[in-house]
């Protein structure tokens, strides 16, 4: 399988008046193959959304990236805006479909703007093209959706429309940032099925950002667990979830309500993610880790392959 996306040792530093203030990403490495769905999991603030934005070339002002991002065989230039790529090679679908669309334009008009930007189609052709994709994402009355304003549609319909917009220019990669979090459980399930079906049909790769391990289990081929700006464990979904190696991954799994014995107190990982990652020199999880030894507070562990395709960043990997 050829690699569609390679993120290699990506570091993002927030600068304030030219001085580093925080380093939310500390050397992220991950790959996505053609037609592969990679789940990126972690707590709030672990850097998963920022990773997605870096891939799109949409880092906020004052964020300085280092490292390498190769998308569809093209190395991304951090110094140059990548507006030509966005929406054409890589598309974004994000969390809240209710606010992601412009409230004063129809869905059709907004999608026309996208297709005119990248394909330069005329109005009539653009309309045909858009209606095709609106039907493709399972919207029952594409023509009505096309003429609707966002407030006239439900959250689930809007998210489908958003996915249709993401597919308009047949991108190679989709970045989905918590696309089901704001939706009802049943609707969320439908959206997940839709993503899988479309992937099978169009063969694009997916970077799926979520905090929900259940969703990952349902949808993703592989997953990468992020903690404090770093990938602490990655591998095929089934393998990682059944045999988690990193203490943090275990903690996440144990914190799932479904994993807990009824009546016993809920388990949680004690403590919180360190606020500022600039000063971190050892394992960032050591202070919250029940297996931590003295060496954990001195050595900064790197992601190492434990078995084929299954990497863990923990010096005690394999022994605990």
């Amino acid at each position, binding site marked *: 399988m050829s690699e569609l996306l390679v993120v290699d040792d990506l570091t993002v530093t927030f600068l304030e008046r030219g001085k580093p203030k925080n380093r939310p990403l500390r050397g992220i490495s991950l790959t996505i193959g053609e037609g592969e769905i990679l789940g990126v999991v972690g707590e709030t603030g672990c850097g998963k959304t920022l990773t997605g934005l870096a891939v799109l070339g*949409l880092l906020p002002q004052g964020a300085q990236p280092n490292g390498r991002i190769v998308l569809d065989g093209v190395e991304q230039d951090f110094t140059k805006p990548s*507006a*030509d790529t*966005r929406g*054409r090679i890589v598309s974004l679908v*994000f969390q809240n479909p209710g606010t992601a669309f412009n409230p004063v334009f129809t869905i059709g008009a907004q999608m026309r703007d*996208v297709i005119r930007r990248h394909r330069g189609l005329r109005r009539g052709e653009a309309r045909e093209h858009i209606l095709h994709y609106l039907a493709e994402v399972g919207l029952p009355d594409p023509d009505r959706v096309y003429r609707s304003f966002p407030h006239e549609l439900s959250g689930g319909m809007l998210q489908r429309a958003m996915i249709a917009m993401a597919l308009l220019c047949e991108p190679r990669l989709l970045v989905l940032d918590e696309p089901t979090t704001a939706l009802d459980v049943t609707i969320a399930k439908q959206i997940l099925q839709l993503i899988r079906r479309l992937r099978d049909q169009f063969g694009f790769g997916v970077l799926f950002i979520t905090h929900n391990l259940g969703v990952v289990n349902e949808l993703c081929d592989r997953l990468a667990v992020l903690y404090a700006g770093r990938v602490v464990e990655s591998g095929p979904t089934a393998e990682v979830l059944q045999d988690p190696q990193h203490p943090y991954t275990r903690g996440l799994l144990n914190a799932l309500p479904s994993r807990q014995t009824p009546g016993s107190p809920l388990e949680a990982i004690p403590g919180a993610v360190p606020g500022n990652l600039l000063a971190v020199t050892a394992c960032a999880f050591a202070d919250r880790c029940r297996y931590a030894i003295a060496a954990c507070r001195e050595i900064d562990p790197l992601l190492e392959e434990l078995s084929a395709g299954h990497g863990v960043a923990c010096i005690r990997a394999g022994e605990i």
Partner: protein
Amino acid sequence: MTLFLLKRVGTSAIVLFSLSVIVFLLTRLIPSNPAVIYAGPKARPEELARVTAELGLDQPLYLQFFRYLGGLVTGDWGNSLATKRPVLDELALRTPATLELLAVAMLFALVVGVILGVIAARRPGRILDMVIRFLSIGGVSMPAFWLGLLLQVFFVGALGILPATGQFSTEIKYLSPITSVTGFPLLDSLLTGNWVAYSDGLAHVILPALTLAAYPLGLIARMTRASMLDVAEQDFVFTARAYGLREGLIRWKLALRNALPPTMTIVGLAAAYTLTGTFYVEIVFNWPGIGQFAAGAMLAVDYPAIVAITMLSAAGYLVANLVVDIVQARLDPRARLS
């Protein structure tokens, strides 16, 4: 929409009635006797008594009020004490000139104010934003009557490229008379293809319109900037960037359309400021409109004229606010439903 309009017209009627009460009470507080003004200072006592009776000033206050109210409703607004002609005729004669001046000024303020506001919001805190901020605060701090004089000194005195006063050059009347179509002379000259009169009128309207526009322009630029900054943080702007849309399209179409409805909220107020601005700007530019007439009426305590001007201006203000609300509803599809 119809219901909304009916409701608004209803409340407007109540407001206008209340205004007429206030104005009535104010005019009856006049220390000087209106009859004296009407009959002239040298009038004999019996003539004064006749005028007093004619104006109904010898009757009890509540009867005077009913008479006054009846007059307002039936269109008998009394005669101007100064010109002895019906005030409504006097106003009708002057309304087109003032409305044309207002329209040009507001159009200029809207277009330039919105453009400046959008540019300022592009990079808040940067030099361009600071300059525009200073300009707009300067605009709302500007004494219009003084700005008018400065513009005259510069464009008329120093450069000599624009006429100083008036609405048209006097010779237009003879060389290229304007055929009345709508009653608005500048518009009529355009509609009838009377280019001589049109360019002459345009040259005359530029300076007073610029003078009047300073205040609303500053107000609109500040408001546009604030709402553009608001909109810039919305998710859909981010979506547009995530789909690679061009910054120009995002700013001038996608974001601006969302920033306009909040901007519209102050356009009504800005128009009202502009309306009272005509009182002194028309003096400076000798513009043959209501403003100059109004200022004269105030100085001469010409109370039927004062009442008429007040009621008309207030009605104009109400209509302006109604128009603003309708435009706002048109701009925002979410408001169209309700």
